[in-house]
């Protein structure tokens, strides 16, 4: 599915400094039973967000009205474990368009890029700076600039550049996906397949 174009995103943020957040936390397995892609946002971080009776847990950040925005600032090793793309669908459906962390799990990062949620890897120092700035002012605005490959704390001007390969960057800026690319080179793939 082609997705929304991503160029420059300015938004307040939601901080989640917990380390090693696995995809079972992002979307527990029992909510993977849909045959379509809609509605996963309701169960994003389900067991951290709600108790067994379905009552919101007030100590979880998504239930804290102080924080909101399209950027999730996450702890180290975010998205480990299961390859379930539903984890990214849930983040997207909830309203996140960008996840920032000092370290992402591999498959999760790939899934993000395929869905149009931009994973931004920052240095541990910059991650700390973000967490401190958000704690000091929950309404602080962060700018993620994909064309320039920069992330900036607008209040202070603190900025850092991030890596993304040119192909994926181009895809995200134009809302293309890999299938569009692969279908366009079908004859090359067919020639390769015929030799196998």
């Amino acid at each position, binding site marked *: *599915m082609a997705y929304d174009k991503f160029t420059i995103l300015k938004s307040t943020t939601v901080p989640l*400094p*917990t*380390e*090693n957040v*696995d995809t*079972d*936390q992002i979307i*527990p*397995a*029992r909510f*993977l*039973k*849909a*045959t*379509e*892609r809609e509605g996963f946002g309701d169960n994003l971080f389900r*067991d951290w967000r709600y108790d*067994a009776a379905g009552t919101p847990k007030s100590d979880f950040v998504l239930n804290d009205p102080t924080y909101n925005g399209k950027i999730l600032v996450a*702890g*180290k*090793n975010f998205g*480990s*474990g*299961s*390859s*379930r*793309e*539903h984890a*990214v669908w849930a983040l997207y459906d909830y309203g996140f368009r960008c996840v920032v962390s000092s*370290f*992402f*799990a*591999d*498959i999760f990062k*790939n*899934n993000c890029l*395929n*869905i149009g949620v931009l994973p931004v890897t920052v240095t541990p120092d910059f991650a700390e700076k973000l*967490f401190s700035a958000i704690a000091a002012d929950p309404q602080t605005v962060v700018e993620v600039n994909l064309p320039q490959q920069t992330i900036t704390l607008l209040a202070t001007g603190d900025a850092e550049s991030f890596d993304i*390969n*040119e*192909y*994926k960057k181009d895809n995200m800026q134009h809302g293309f*996906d*890999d*299938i569009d*690319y*692969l*279908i366009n*080179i*079908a004859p*090359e*793939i067919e020639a*390769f*397949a015929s030799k*196998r």
Partner: protein
Amino acid sequence: MEKTTLFDKIWDAHVVKSVPAGPDVFFIDKHFIHEVTSPVAFLNLEKRGIGVKYPHRTIATPDHNVPTVDQDQTIKDKLSRMQVEKLRQNCAKYGIELHDLGSAHHGIVHVIGPELGVTQPGMTIVCGDSHTSTHGAFGAIAFGIGTSEVEMVLATQCIMQSKAKKMRISVEGTLGKGVTSKDIILYIISKISAAGATGYFVEYAGSAIQSLSMEARMTICNMSIEMGARGGLIAPDETTFAYLKGKEYAPKGEAWDQAVAHWKTLKTDDGAIFDKELVFQAADIEPMITYGTNPGMGIKINGNIPSTQGMEGSNKTSYLKSLDYMGFAPGEPILGKSVDYVFVGSCTNGRIEDIRAVAQFVKGHKKADSITAWIVPGSREVEKQAQAEGLVAILEEAGFELRQPGCSACLAMNDDKIPAGKYAVSTSNRNFEGRQGPGARTLLASPLTVAAVAITGRITDPREVFGN
């Protein structure tokens, strides 16, 4: 000539083209699908008005959400039933081979692939499941993908992938008594952490690895993802060829000889360079168990849960959050702690060798009264063999409940859930919060350790029971 690794040889042979400053267009030989991560991929194909390009390269089985009782009846859970029915419809529509519930080769996708001989050395294999790394035990490049990539493979037989960095992990020497391949991999992950191999593809090597059976090798490769690796593989050898010979989908006659001749070339050249190399000694490895909420949080079973000394900031907060969930305290021993459930099964340890190990261990004994003991074969074939070898009778005599094949309590998508707050010692692969049911507390261990726990009802060193 340039010295290359096994990973390079297989990878490079499957690159259709390289995108400048981008990923490789990577050709997939075999694609496994199941009911949970495929429906949206098929739906999107329909939306695009395209079909499945090479249906014979995809094989399907329902495993993640299926009940492990009454598989001959209609699935009671409506959403699970819909997913399984979608899989059936999609397979029928596009001509994809399906090993359905109740059929001779139904089972967990990573158990039936090798069992059928579909998994072979030198192949590229993907599935919308991170434990696809299991198939690397045969000297294949195998890894988990997301649903968008499932769609790509169905549509074009390719995905866009950047080549991973290369790591070699060697384990040398002879394993001690009561130490299994599960302990090897839990040991490695505890040493390098749950993120220690992120960005790498791992080759396992060394004399301790070479001495392992195919089942034991699969257990190791299976858990590569639990240290963040994209996948793990082991060079094929005589053990691999002996396992595959005569399997349904393995080459036959002259084709077999040709295949083996090719497979023998699939190894890392002497002097090939890895981005990272680690060496461990088998003699240092003892029975392992996890105490926390990621697979890197493991200790030798007679050790203490680490103290918080030297930890600070979010590292310490995350660690204490994890121990709080588990109901454990820093610094305390884990031996002797009371357990409520044991689970033997999953794509990690649900094979015949695992069931044999448990049966031999518990033969003539009863499980502790306080323990609920589930044993879930990885496939119908494993179940059949366990029956034929008399293992089922031994296990039932010991008080284990044998259930029908599926992923079961490994991820608790079906009714096989550990209740909130209860402790389960499990042969599966993940001890994440809520993995085996909301609020469930999981400790990962080998089938031998699980057998020992089943008998005593407590965390027990398998070497201490019955002089085993």
